[in-house]
């Protein structure tokens, strides 16, 4: 795009450019070097090493030997592994849907004309800024079996008779960790979608109103279609981070009760670090990759669609 605008008939500029072109490869290499070294050594290589470890019986303090698919075979017969897969999918699907619905709602609310709008927008993002582990510790206290403030409030209102056992029984614990994840994820979804909402021209809404559209119709046929490319990307990120979540579970339940909240990431950690079975842990981590790849492909097509919608400027 910029190239086309600059090249015509500008002879000195064209000549300068030609001389740079010769050294472009070398210059680019030099500038890329620090980032490339870091990413190759600490990202690409470990990815490969992780796949390799998945095929070995490495333990902490002992190099392993190649055992083929043994780790995967034992995982295939491991009911806890399958439970963690189920938990991860449940956690991801429910939490992502809730984050999307509530986040979009909050974005629409913040897009209204409000007093102290900037301030409200700033404090709403706090759950996302504060370290997850630290806010999860606060939640841990909120979900205490005896001294939960939620139970206290509900008991005072006469809704329940005895304290709720938030993290003690499997389904309660699942609902609780999902709620906490949603709590942390809403601000991200809301603020990014709000940025998208602000780019929608108000004149579209005015035109639709003149044509007699109801507010639901304006949302359904103007806001949603205009926002959908951004939604695709935001939700891909959200799904990705929810799927690989570790911190929240580790703080709140460590996978318990009865492994009901073990996600693949926490199971992989538990087997590899406290359990010492690095090979098996790596195999569980590798088993997450197909899911992640499908999320990334989804994101890729989301981005493609965006360019197409904006008139095809593929620059």
């Amino acid at each position, binding site marked *: 795009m910029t190239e086309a605008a*600059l090249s015509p008939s500008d002879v*000195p*500029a064209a000549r300068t450019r030609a001389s740079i072109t010769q050294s472009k490869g070398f*210059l*680019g290499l030099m500038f*890329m070097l*620090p*980032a490339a070294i*870091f990413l190759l050594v*600490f*990202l690409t*290589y*470990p*990815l490969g*090493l*992780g796949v390799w*470890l998945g095929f070995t019986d490495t333990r902490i303090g002992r190099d392993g030997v190649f055992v083929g698919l043994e780790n995967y075979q034992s995982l295939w017969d491991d009911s806890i592994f399958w439970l963690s897969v189920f938990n991860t999918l449940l956690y991801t699907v429910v939490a992502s849907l809730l984050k999307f619905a*509530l986040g979009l709602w909050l974005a629409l*609310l913040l897009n209204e*004309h*409000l007093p102290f709008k900037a301030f*409200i*927008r*700033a404090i709403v*993002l*706090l*759950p996302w800024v504060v*370290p*997850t*582990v*630290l*806010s999860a*510790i*606060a939640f841990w*206290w*909120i979900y*205490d079996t005896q001294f939960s*403030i939620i139970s206290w409030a509900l008991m005072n209102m006469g809704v329940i008779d005895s304290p709720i056992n938030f993290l003690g029984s499997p389904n309660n614990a699942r609902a609780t960790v999902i709620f906490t994840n949603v709590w942390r994820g809403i601000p991200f979804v809301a*603020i990014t979608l709000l*940025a998208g909402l602000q780019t929608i021209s*108000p004149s579209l*809404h005015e035109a639709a109103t003149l044509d007699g559209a109801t*507010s639901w119709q304006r949302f359904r046929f103007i806001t949603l279609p205009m926002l959908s490319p951004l939604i695709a990307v*935001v939700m891909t990120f959200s799904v990705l981070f929810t799927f*690989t979540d*570790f911190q929240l579970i*580790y*703080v709140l339940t460590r996978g318990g009760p009865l492994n009901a909240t073990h996600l693949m*990431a926490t199971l*992989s950690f538990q087997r590899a*670090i406290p359990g010492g079975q*690095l090979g098996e842990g*790596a195999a569980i*981590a*590798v088993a*997450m990759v197909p899911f*992640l790849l499908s*999320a*990334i492909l989804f*994101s890729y097509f989301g981005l493609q669609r965006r360019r197409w919608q904006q008139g095809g400027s593929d620059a």
Partner: protein
Amino acid sequence: MTYSARPADHAMDDESVGMSYLNRAPRRLVTVYLPLAVFVFVLLFPFYWMTITALKPNDELTNFRDFNPLWPENPTLQHIRYLLFETSYPGWLLNTMLVSLGSTILSLIASVLGAYAIERIRFSGSRWIGLGIFLAYLVPPSILFIPLAVMIFKFGIYDSKLALIFTYPTFLIPFCTWLLMGYFRSIPYELEECALVDGASRWQILTKIMLPLSVPGLISAGIFAFTLSWNEFIYALTFIQSSENKTVPVGVLTELVRGDVYEWGALMAGALLGSLPVVLLYSFFVDYYVSSMTGAVKE
């Protein structure tokens, strides 16, 4: 980037004036203010609870009958004093600060150079490397920590701050590069052309033209990277063993919880003090923060 929000804000003002007849006050109360109040309450309550728990004396913590749990009757600083003088907490704060600063600076340097090369030098294959950087951003720490732990052990930097300073850039560099690529793209090519014609080298262009013009982008990337490293947990949990090298999130969780007796006051004080630095940083640079968050998703 930060300015781009303004015209839109203005436009929204126009809309709400032009179409406000649709939303009269009582109706707005139910459709806007009430749900918003619920959202704000739920989103902020844990912080309120964290703060007052940190200020309550121990006997008030678990006695909901004689004291109103929603307010500290006899606020005390005993938990904070305990934390600062009788635990390794100040050391953890310092470690987190050092690790976050170190990895942020390393990542910024690598990212500025990388983003400039991809966006402006346009060597052959730069588009593919750009795509690769984006994909690297999507690789989650929870599938990397096991092989990284093995490598770090082999390098002999296990249980040291260096282990964290070298591994955090794996998620910071892709993010910062991606953000700065978008920022560099918004700087007119003509400025660079002029400098090239005047005989400036690529290095001079980067340091004398691009960097001064992209200070807001650098601040966005820097703050965001700092916050991400401050909040990082799984690497710090895996690679650090000894108490004196722990970061705040790991230290609070692993050292302040002893056996079955939870010292809730100290735990909450630890969570509060550990959150303050990032919250302060955030409150001073809200716009930069939001622009980096939305910028990373948008492109």
